[in-house]
């Protein structure tokens, strides 16, 4: 969980308004695999990915310009790393993006990975995910090793830090991820009304 500096919170005197989403996961925390339906209605059990060398969970969108700027890179990385034993899974938590739209979007952009529909943004809340795209990388023991952006340049023309690739190479090489948490601008996940 990303905790606020205590001094800042108490100085503000309004800590309740500044706390991160309840249930946000932290680096080093273990995930209990869950099940969700994919865009075709088929139930996908993340537990079935046991044995993979890493699992990449990606909160993505069909309408967000930032998420869409990464479609090609997500498809390319998933293809490249599938050969190395890594599973990629997309999760769509946006209330206004239907399963039909998600299926069409995935087909249009050649996603070789399933995109799961997170009805009621249950998993987004559980992870504390706020933006699209937002990435979580798990090692074979389902321990969170990386959380954040795909890379540091939305346009893709001036990437200086391949954060997701670096994280995967580290996990595959049995090394510590050099930068385990990163941030980038992104679209808000459109949640159901509270």
């Amino acid at each position, binding site marked *: 969980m990303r905790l606020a500096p205590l001094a800042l919170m108490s100085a503000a005197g309004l800590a309740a308004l500044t706390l991160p989403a309840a249930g946000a996961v932290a680096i080093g925390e273990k995930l209990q695999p869950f099940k969700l339906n994919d865009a075709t209605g088929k139930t996908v059990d993340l537990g079935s990915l046991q044995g993979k060398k890493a699992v990449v969970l990606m909160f993505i969108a069909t309408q967000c310009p930032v998420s869409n700027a990464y479609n090609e890179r997500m498809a390319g990385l998933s293809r490249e790393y599938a050969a190395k034993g890594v599973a990629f899974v997309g999760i769509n938590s946006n209330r206004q993006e239907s399963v039909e739209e998600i299926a069409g979007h995935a087909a249009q952009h050649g996603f070789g990975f399933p995109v799961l529909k997170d009805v009621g943004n249950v998993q987004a809340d559980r992870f504390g995910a706020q933006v699209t795209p937002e990435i979580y990388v798990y090692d074979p023991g389902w321990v969170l090793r990386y959380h954040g952006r795909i890379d540091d340049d*939305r346009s893709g023309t001036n990437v200086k830090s391949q954060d997701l690739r670096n994280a995967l190479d580290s996990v595959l090489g049995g090394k510590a991820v050099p930068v385990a948490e990163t941030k980038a601008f992104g679209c808000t996940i459109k949640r159901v009304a509270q």
Partner: protein
Amino acid sequence: MSAAALLLAGVLAGQLDAAGVGRAVAAHRGRPVVLTLWATWCDPCVKEFPSLAALARQRKDVAFISVSIDEPEDRGTLEAFVAERRPPFPVYVRAAGPDQAFIDGVDREWSGVVPVTLVYDREGRRAALLQGEHGRADVEKALAEAEKARPRAKAETAAHGARF
């Protein structure tokens, strides 16, 4: 004047890096401040823009600051948007630089999601961080909370002073 400054001389207030955002907020010490970061490509941002403008027209006691994170290639879209809306607050644009340095420089608790609205009390302390879609009512509530905290802080200071 640089080409970038000339470009901004029309409807936009100028370019700000994270430190500049901090200075812009600090310049209004003595008044509550509502700082919004947004982009023209962000639908919820565009949707909430009129309600923030309406609130700013009503709450003259509050300083409103708007900072667009639009990329340079979207500058025309941004200028047209601001020129058409004529908001009652300055609209700055983020200066070029690494995204994460800007995000953390504005507020370490900000995830990078837009829109984001930060409310500061009269002493310049950040009182609320509203990430994602929030309506006018949430901003008004945060402002009220920031104001409510103020007399209590003053009373505590007074009590402390009386005791010693």
